[in-house]
């Protein structure tokens, strides 16, 4: 460990510079604001609203009613408020998005660095497994997994996380190879640095910005994946944005003019996914020195 004071001071100025640069482009903070709003909605919903409104048997509104004062976003096929369903759905979509992205990043980064660092058969085996997961069309595999293991939140998280880490591993491996080709790695080795030292002290800091930006993008992908799985029938058993779109399709909302039922959940997905993408790209722009050098 380096002396605490020096490291602390350096960390402070670094994070200050990070914030300054992150704020310099409007898209990053805008995305972050949308995310903050979405997370607040998801957290506050149980405190402010009554889940009884989600009960089909106790719904009071008209069936497929257009937006009104009582139901600002209209009602669904059994008279539930679309707005209420969306606020509750945000919890499921965000939770599944975060958890499966986290799972996928942990697997992807570990495998990627190891596969890039080691030579010979360990790398070959790791890349074989990665390639294998990469070629399996992830949505198709996730659907099969969900269909076989039965629905449920945990199954969906597992299905998305396990099927989406391979591209991250490849990305991280490529970056690891590039980093390890640099002369200072050779120097570190010559000075007696072992595998663990090189991987954690030289490679990891170099790929960390990529990992951070990629995680943010990965959450976006996971939310899209969750909604697609729900639309194709692999539902978590709770109200989610994708599940709402499934119901809207089943009840012919798109062809019978019930636009509020199709637009509202979809726009929420797009807004949140785009927010994650914007933040991810802003992070990338700040953290990737090559992009910074290229100017804006």
């Amino acid at each position, binding site marked *: 460990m380096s002396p605490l004071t020096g490291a602390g001071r350096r960390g402070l100025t670094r994070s200050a510079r990070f914030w300054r640069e992150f704020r310099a482009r409007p898209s990053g903070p805008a995305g972050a604001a949308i995310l903050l709003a979405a997370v607040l909605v998801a957290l506050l919903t149980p405190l402010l609203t009554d889940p009884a409104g989600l009960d089909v048997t106790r719904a009071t509104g008209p069936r497929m009613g257009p937006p009104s004062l009582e139901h600002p976003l209209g009602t669904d096929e059994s008279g539930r408020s679309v707005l209420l369903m969306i606020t509750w759905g945000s919890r499921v979509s965000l939770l599944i998005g975060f958890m499966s992205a986290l799972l996928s990043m942990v697997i992807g980064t570990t495998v990627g660095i190891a596969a890039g660092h080691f030579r010979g058969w360990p790398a070959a085996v790791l890349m074989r497994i990665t390639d294998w997961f990469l070629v399996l069309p992830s949505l*198709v595999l996730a659907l099969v997994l969900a269909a076989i293991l039965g629905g449920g939140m945990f199954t969906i998280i597992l299905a998305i996380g396990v099927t989406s880490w391979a591209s991250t591993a490849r990305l991280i491996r490529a970056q690891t190879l590039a980093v390890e080709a640099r002369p200072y790695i050779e120097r570190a080795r010559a000075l007696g640095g072992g595998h663990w030292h090189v991987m954690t002290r030289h490679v990891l800091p170099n790929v960390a910005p990529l990992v951070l930006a990629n995680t943010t993008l990965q959450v976006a992908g996971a939310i899209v994946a969750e909604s697609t799985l729900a639309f194709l029938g692999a539902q978590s058993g709770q109200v989610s944005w994708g599940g709402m779109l499934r119901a809207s399709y089943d009840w012919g909302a798109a062809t019978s003019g019930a636009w509020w039922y199709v637009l509202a959940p979809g726009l929420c997905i797009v807004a949140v996914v785009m927010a994650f*993408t*914007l933040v991810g790209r802003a992070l990338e722009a700040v953290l990737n020195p*090559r992009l910074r050098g290229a100017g804006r």
Partner: protein
Amino acid sequence: MTAPLGTAPADGPSAPAQDARAAEGPPPGRRSTLRYAAAKLGGAVLSVGMVIVATFFLFRLIPGDPTIAYTRDVPVSPEQLALLRRQLGLDRPLGEQFLDFVWRTLRLDLGTSYEYRRPVSELIGERAGPTLLLAGTGLAVAVGLGLWQGARAAWRHGGRLDRVSTGVSLVLWSVPTFWLGLLLLMGLAAGVGPFPGVFPTRGMEDVDAPDGFAYVLHVGHHLVLPCLTLVAVVYAQYLLVMRSSLLDEIGQDYITTARAKGLRDDEVRRRHAVPNALLPTVTLVFMNIGFVVAGAVSVETVYSWPGLGLLFYEAIKGPDFAVMQGTFLVLCVAVIVMNTLADVVYHVLDPRVRSA
């Protein structure tokens, strides 16, 4: 002044290595490429083997056993269940079942559909055509449009085209395929308010489809919306990849060198930057075939396009495990083939990889 300059940056980093190998004698590029291709082919065969093994065990994970799925909603006696288990080969040891499964899969015997009462391979053969048509058309349009526009956008980094096209593709990237399909369905097929729909809402052809050239137009008319949906989603990815890949190249020294030599701006782009930026993009195009397959499943479901994706979706919904298993195998193998192709192409195109 054109040809040698054009290739110079591409093999810049590895030029000494290549010289060294050329000096050694006969074995330059081609033979190593062949050996590489053979290795990749072996890898692909291994991958297919792993898919077959995984499929076997995955589908044995089904809670209970397949007879439950087969006899759902039907009252059956224990004797009938036992008979069914024997017919399905479920009473034999696992190893024997596995060998039997492998042997039948290699002979393209994928079992019989519970829903259709027909061989799965026959069903898949019927449904492959529409999917190839949809995915092929969509992919060709998306790749052409995405790469071209991505290169343009990156070159004028921060310009109007860049901002508009990255904005549009960020939105498209964030849009779930099926939702975009629903929107187009709502706007262009069902009609909005007084405006009638212009495109059919479902299927590849109507019952009263005409013959000859009119049939082609008829199918084309049905193809527009599904294809548009697929292109919109996939193209955004290619654009962004090409853009960021080219942006990476713009920061490189050889671009500065090329400019310093006095090359015209679009010559620097066309001959120096784009060929290098294409490398990662080409791999991504092929590697993302899985993404296209996923898109096809969503699109075919929304528009009831009679392809493999719809077959797979119906099998999931059934559930019709034999069809699910067969479609899963076919989709995976198709993607493995494309991926292997990508590796070989990448190897041929990039001398830096070859020397590694």
